[in-house]
C-alpha cells in the first residue's frame, strides 16, 4: 500500500512508501553512487572527517538602517560567537539606485543596510579586520560594484586581497528566475558575472566568486526537486560562460559555491543536499572535463526557509527553524543561517537574532551531530530519495539543454512558469488543508502573541540622503567623470569591468552612478510577467 501524501511541505513527491527496504534500492550501485565520505561523487560529503575536521560556519545574514547601525549588529554577532559575517543590503542598493532616486522612497535601510559609496562600506566594517573574518555579500546585479568597494576597504585597512576570504552571491540567473532583482538584460548581466570570476581568479584567489542559489528559487514557490534542478543547471550555465570566455575550468571552478534552502520536509531536504553533491561532481568531471577534485566538490551554505515562518504564533518558528537547521546539518552544509522567530513580521530584533544563533550552537555542541559524517547515509529511504531527486534533476537538465541553456530558458520564461505553477498549487494545498500549517490553518489560537519587532527609523533615509549630498559637494568631479567614462568604455567593449569599477570606487562613485553608467551601455530589463 502506498501512503498518498499530496504536496507535503511543497514537495512534489506525491507518494512516499510507508516503509523502505533493501528492495527500494534494487538496481542501484551503492558502492559507486554513495561511497564513503570524501570520495567521488561525494554523495556522503566532501570531507572524509565531516564536521570533526571543520565545523560549519555560523553565518547570520544581517543588515538594516545605516552602515553604523549594522556595524554594531556585526560586532554583537561576532562577540556572541558568530564565525562569519553576511551582509544584507537594502533594496535601493540591490537595485543600483541611490537613496535620492524616486523609486528609493521609503525603502532606504528597510530590508537591509544602505551602502551608497566607499565611505559607507568603510563604516560598515569599522573595527572589523577583513583579514580575520570571512564575509558573504548578498548582492547580484550590482555585485561588481559592491565587491570593488569591499576590495578598496581591504586596501585601506592594509589587508592584501590574497588574504581575503568570503563570498559574493553574484548569481543573476536566479534573479531572473525567482527573486527579480535584476537591472540589465540577461546577456550583459552574464558578462558581469564572468568578469568577477575572471578577476578574482587572478587577484582574489580565496574568494568564492558565485554562490549559486536555490534558496530564492525555493522561496518563490519551487519544490525541492525544482530547486535542485534549476540551481544546478544555473551552475552549469555559469561554468559554460566562463569556459567560453577562455578561462580554464580547474582554475575557477573550485571557487564556485552553492546556497540551498533548508525547508520543512527533513528527509527530502537531506536527500536534496546529497543529490546536489553527486550531480555536481559528475557534471564537472564528465560535462566539463574538470580534473581537480576541488572542482568536483560541491560546497554549500544553507538558510532555513523564510517562507515557512508564520506571523501567527511566532514562537512556533523557533521549532521550525531548529528542525530545518537539523536537515542542513544532516545534509553536510558548510555554513548555515538560522532565521529568527520574528521574520514573518519584520527584520529580526537583536534578541531574536541571538536566539537564532543559539539554535545553531545547541545543534553543534549539545546533540552529538558533529561526530558522525552523513549519519543517514545508507538508509533505504534516504538513498532512494537521493537517487529519485537526482534522476528528476537530470530530466530537467535535458529539457533546459534542449531549450539552448538556462539563459534561453529564462528568456522563454520556462523556470518562472514552472515555479509559479508550484507556488499556486502549494497555496491551494494550504487552503484545502491538504497541507497543515500549525497556527495558520490548524490549531489556530485566538488573540495575538505579543511580539516586539524591529522598527527602522525614517531618519535613516534623511541621514543617507544628507550624506550623499555632502559626498557630491566634496569629491573631485573631474576624477569621478574620468573613472565613469573609462567604465563605460570597458563595458561597451570586451575589457573586464572590475579594474574600472575599482577606480570609480576610489573616486567616490556611488552605487547608483556606477550602475547608471552601465544602464547607458546596456539598457534595463523588463520582464513579461507570468502568472
Amino acid at each position, binding site marked *: 500500500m502506498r501512503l498518498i501524501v499530496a504536496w507535503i511541505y511543497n514537495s512534489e513527491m506525491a507518494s512516499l512508501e510507508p516503509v523502505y527496504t533493501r528492495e527500494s534500492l534494487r538496481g542501484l550501485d551503492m558502492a559507486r553512487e554513495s561511497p564513503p565520505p570524501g570520495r567521488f561523487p561525494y554523495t556522503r560529503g566532501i570531507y572524509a572527517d565531516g564536521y570533526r575536521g571543520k565545523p560549519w560556519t555560523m553565518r547570520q545574514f544581517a543588515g538594516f538602517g545605516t552602515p553604523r547601525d549594522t556595524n554594531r549588529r556585526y560586532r554583537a554577532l561576532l562577540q556572541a560567537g558568530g564565525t562569519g559575517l553576511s551582509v544584507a543590503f537594502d533594496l535601493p542598493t540591490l537595485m543600483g539606485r541611490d537613496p535620492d532616486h524616486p523609486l528609493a522612497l521609503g525603502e532606504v535601510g528597510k530590508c537591509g543596510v544602505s551602502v551608497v559609496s566607499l565611505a559607507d562600506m568603510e563604516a560598515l566594517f569599522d573595527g572589523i579586520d577583513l583579514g580575520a573574518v570571512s564575509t558573504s555579500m548578498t548582492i547580484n546585479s550590482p555585485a561588481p560594484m559592491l565587491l570593488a568597494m569591499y576590495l578598496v576597504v581591504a586596501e585601506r585597512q592594509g589587508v592584501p586581497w590574497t588574504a581575503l576570504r568570503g563570498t559574493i552571491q553574484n548569481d543573476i540567473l536566479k534573479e531572473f528566475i525567482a527573486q527579480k532583482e535584476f537591472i540589465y538584460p540577461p546577456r550583459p548581466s552574464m558578462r558581469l558575472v564572468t568578469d568577477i570570476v575572471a578577476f578574482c581568479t587572478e587577484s582574489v584567489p580565496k574568494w568564492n566568486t558565485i554562490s549559486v542559489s536555490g534558496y530564492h528559487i525555493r522561496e*518563490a514557490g519551487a519544490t525541492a526537486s525544482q530547486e535542485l534542478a534549476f540551481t544546478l543547471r544555473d551552475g552549469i550555465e555559469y561554468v559554460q560562460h566562463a569556459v567560453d570566455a577562455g578561462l580554464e575550468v580547474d582554475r575557477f571552478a573550485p571557487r564556485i559555491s552553492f546556497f540551498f534552502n533548508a525547508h520543512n520536509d527533513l528527509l527530502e531536504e537531506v536527500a536534496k543536499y546529497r543529490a546536489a553533491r553527486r550531480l555536481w561532481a559528475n557534471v564537472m568531471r564528465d560535462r566539463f572535463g574538470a580534473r581537480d577534485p576541488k572542482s568536483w566538490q560541491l560546497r554549500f551554505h544553507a538558510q532555513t526557509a523564510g517562507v515557512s515562518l508564520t506571523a501567527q504564533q511566532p514562537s512556533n518558528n523557533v521549532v521550525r527553524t531548529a528542525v530545518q537547521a537539523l536537515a542542513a546539518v544532516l545534509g553536510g552544509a558548510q555554513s548555515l543561517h538560522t532565521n529568527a522567530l520574528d521574520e514573518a513580521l519584520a527584520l529580526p530584533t537583536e534578541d531574536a537574532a541571538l536566539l537564532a544563533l543559539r539554535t545553531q550552537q545547541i545543534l553543534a555542541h549539545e546533540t552529538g551531530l558533529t561526530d558522525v559524517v552523513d549519519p543517514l547515509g545508507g538508509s533505504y529511504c534516504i538513498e532512494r530519495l537521493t537517487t529519485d531527486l537526482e534522476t528528476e534533476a537530470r530530466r530537467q537538465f535535458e529539457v533546459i539543454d534542449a531549450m539552448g541553456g538556462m539563459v534561453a530558458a529564462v528568456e522563454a520564461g520556462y523556470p518562472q512558469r514552472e515555479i509559479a505553477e508550484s507556488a499556486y498549487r502549494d497555496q491551494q494545498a494550504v487552503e484545502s488543508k491538504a497541507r497543515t500549517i500549525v497556527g495558520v490553518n490548524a490549531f489556530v489560537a485566538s488573540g495575538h502573541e505579543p511580539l516586539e519587532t524591529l522598527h527602522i527609523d525614517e531618519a535613516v533615509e534623511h541621514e543617507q540622503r544628507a550624506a550623499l549630498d555632502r559626498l557630491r559637494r566634496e569629491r573631485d568631479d573631474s576624477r569621478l567623470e574620468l573613472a565613469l567614462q573609462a567604465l563605460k568604455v570597458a563595458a561597451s567593449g570586451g575589457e573586464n569591468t572590475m579594474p574600472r569599477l575599482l577606480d570609480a570606487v576610489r573616486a567616490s562613485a556611488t552605487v547608483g552612478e556606477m550602475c547608471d553608467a552601465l544602464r547607458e551601455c546596456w539598457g534595463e530589463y523588463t520582464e513579461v510577467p507570468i502568472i
Partner: protein
Amino acid sequence: MSRIRVVIAKPGLDGHDRGAKVIARALRDAGMEVIYTGLRQTPEQIVTAALQEDADVIGLSILSGAHMHICPRIVDLLREHEMGDVVVVVGGIIPDADVPKLNAIGITGVFQPGTPMQDIVEFIRGRVKPGVRPDVRGDTVAKVE
C-alpha cells in the same frame, strides 16, 4: 453581468512577487478580470493602469516596509483623478500598528501573512457589486459610467 476588474500591482523596488502572482491567479479563478502590472510600478503608473483598465479594485502587494509611503500616495492620486470609488486593498508584511492607519486613509482591506485567498475573494465581492461601487469611505454610490 460584468465581471469585477482588478489591477494587481507590485509597487516599490522589491521583486518578491510570489504573493502577487498567487493572488492574481486566485482572483482570476474566482471569475474576476485580473490585470497584473508587473514589477516596480510607481504610484502614478498604478493609478494610470487602474484608469485605463476601468478597474473596480487595486490590489497592492508590499513586503518591503514601504507601505506607509506608497499607500497614501495611491489614495491621493485616486482622489485627484476622481477615482475615489476604486477599492484599494493591500497584502504583505504589514505590522499590526499600521493597520488602523491604513484603514483611516480608506484602505479597509489589509491582508497580513497567512490570509486565505478565499477571504480576499469574499472581501472584494462584498465591496464591489456589479455596476455599483462603494467609495473609499465605505458609502455605496452608483457607478459612474
